[in-house]
């Protein structure tokens, strides 16, 4: 039903827009500049007001702190790309943060019980992928709404984490995790390298491979993608498995950074959603892109960092973050050609 509406709408749009293609191009340009401009203005304010904000080490520090959120936000972005960005029926993985918590618990507990590094590594990634697979089965085979399927899985996974850790901090440290947490290469810390390399891989995968292009096709118009011979089910299912993989990788960074698995990882969910969805305003067609996701992740990181440097009470930070996110999004939607 929705598809008919969309088709009718896009038909009307193309009819009215055809005549003013240049104005539309200009409008789209303004949109992107609006979001990036707001982003730049806020950073410029911090650069002027907060001493040391533009310091190389401070910037590196923010990149390092954003590594975990970045990896998870990429997982969420891929799910949104493959599932479409409809508010209710689009792709979303609410279990991503809880899954990260479970993987972190698996990593910490298995290391504590004496398994060797490759085994714990495999168990952690395996747990993440398994949860992703469960989401994929629920969404693709059982046809459950992603919002609802991943909500149920989130409950199961969060409960499993509690059972595994008995709601306590499981501390762990090994040479490997110490290397990730404190090591550096060419003057840049390992955590920052992880984010940089992961981002480059995502840019290459999403925007320079056929698979990435087909993934966008699947999310943009599943029927057309199916008609073009793309295995839509495999692509959509794959996005959830990939999100699970990201949860596994993110959890290893998380445990390394904290030297422990801690309860409450599930609270990352809102930040992950914010990073992935905020990224859409940086793209021309308002879909998540690798560049948009990394920009918005860093934006969220820079906001928290800037407020710390300005000595703003932490009570204010989430509120101002929320306001600025709305500001950036509003700057975009004002310039957006009218769309219902």
């Amino acid at each position, binding site marked *: 039903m929705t598809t008919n509406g969309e088709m009718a709408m896009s038909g009307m749009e193309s009819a009215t827009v055809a005549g003013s293609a240049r104005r539309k191009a200009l409008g789209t340009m303004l949109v992107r500049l609006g979001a990036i401009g707001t982003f730049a203005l806020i950073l410029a304010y911090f650069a002027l007001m907060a001493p040391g904000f533009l310091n190389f080490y401070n910037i590196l520090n923010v990149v390092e702190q954003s590594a975990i959120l970045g990896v998870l936000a990429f997982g969420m972005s891929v799910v949104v790309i493959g599932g479409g960005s409809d508010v209710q029926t689009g792709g979303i993985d609410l279990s991503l943060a809880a899954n990260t918590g479970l993987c972190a618990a698996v990593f910490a507990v298995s290391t504590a019980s004496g398994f060797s590094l490759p085994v714990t590594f495999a168990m952690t990634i395996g747990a993440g992928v398994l949860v992703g697979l469960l989401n994929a089965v629920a969404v693709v085979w059982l046809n459950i709404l992603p919002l609802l399927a991943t909500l149920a899985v989130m409950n199961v996974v969060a409960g499993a984490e509690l059972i595994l850790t008995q709601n306590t901090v499981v501390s762990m440290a090994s040479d490997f995790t110490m290397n990730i947490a404190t090591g550096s290469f060419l003057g840049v810390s390992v955590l920052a390298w992880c984010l940089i390399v992961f981002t480059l891989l995502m840019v290459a995968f999403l925007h320079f491979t056929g698979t990435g292009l087909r993934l966008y096709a699947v999310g943009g118009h599943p029927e057309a993608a199916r008609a073009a011979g793309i295995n839509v089910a495999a692509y959509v299912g794959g996005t959830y498995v990939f999100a699970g993989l990201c949860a596994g990788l993110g959890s290893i960074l998380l445990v390394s950074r904290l030297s422990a698995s801690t309860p409450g990882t599930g609270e990352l969910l809102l930040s992950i959603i914010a990073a992935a969805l905020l990224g859409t305003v940086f793209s021309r067609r308002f879909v998540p892109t690798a560049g948009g996701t990394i920009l918005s992740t860093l934006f969220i990181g820079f906001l928290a960092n800037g407020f710390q440097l300005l000595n703003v009470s932490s009570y204010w930070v989430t509120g101002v*973050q929320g306001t600025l996110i709305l500001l950036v999004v509003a700057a975009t939607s004002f310039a957006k050609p009218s769309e219902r």
Partner: protein
Amino acid sequence: MSTQAQSRASSFFSAENISRYAVVLAFAALLVVFSVASPTFFTGANLYNVLLNNVVLLAIVALGMTVVITAGGIDLSVGVSVDMASMVFIMLLAAGYGVPLGILAGLCAAGAVGLLNAVLITRLKISPFLATLGVLFIGQSVQQIATGGGQPIYLVTGEFASIFNAIVRTQVLGLPMPLIILVLCLGAVYAALHHSVFGRYVRAFGAQPGVAWYSGIRVPFNMSMVYVACGLLCGVAGILLSSTVRSYVPLSGNAFLLDAIGATFIGTTISAERRPSVIGTLLGVALLAIVKNGLLLVGWNFYWQQVGVGVLVFLILALSFGLRGRNH
């Protein structure tokens, strides 16, 4: 004659019917299972307790969510509306203003949260997901600032006890006040959604947003009403919540968010078109409530309860969505 009866019988057990009534069947099955497993489950006192403590508040919040989801949106800030009403109500009571003013101001605060959502979504054209997420962040911050970092406010002295008792314990026609309020909210939302012009518009927004716009419906105004209504309903829940626990605990409303979304979408499975409905939402709320209560009585600890709720909801959804096949 007999073949007709046979075909009727087979159609009664068709995949379509099983998938549509999966929630009802599961509800009945769970009632039986828990009644057998725990002697205290199927007693008047326990069911009354579940109804009063687990169903009423979630049901009122879920009704608000139902209105928003019917209109094709989503509201991640229901918890903020609940908290704002609770905060303003308790703060005014503590400052010595009367109950009527406290309730009125509390509802206004919750309505204001809804209005903020409405302005962001209809005027600034921000997607409901991002708009309400932003409001959620702002609302959490406002509460932390107002309470010095999240200090709860308790009103436990005698004079307040009588006020709260008057709100929560008063009985009308033998029914406690919260139940009466739930029934009133149910009736109002049911009439508004299913038997009014406004409701027809709202359902049109959800089904065919483009067509609703081109048909000349005042989308911004009606859509604003949707979010304000959701805020007000959450405000009612917030005032009932703080009257029940006789305090305001910052950021406590967020606990309703995922349950309300879950209950509403579980409710969509009983409609052939997968649309939310008041009855469906109520069924979803009741299902979540008895699963939680039942697992508790059977003796599962909190951790396993969470897994149990997740698995049960997953299975019900699988039964409901899976049997219907790919028809979207």
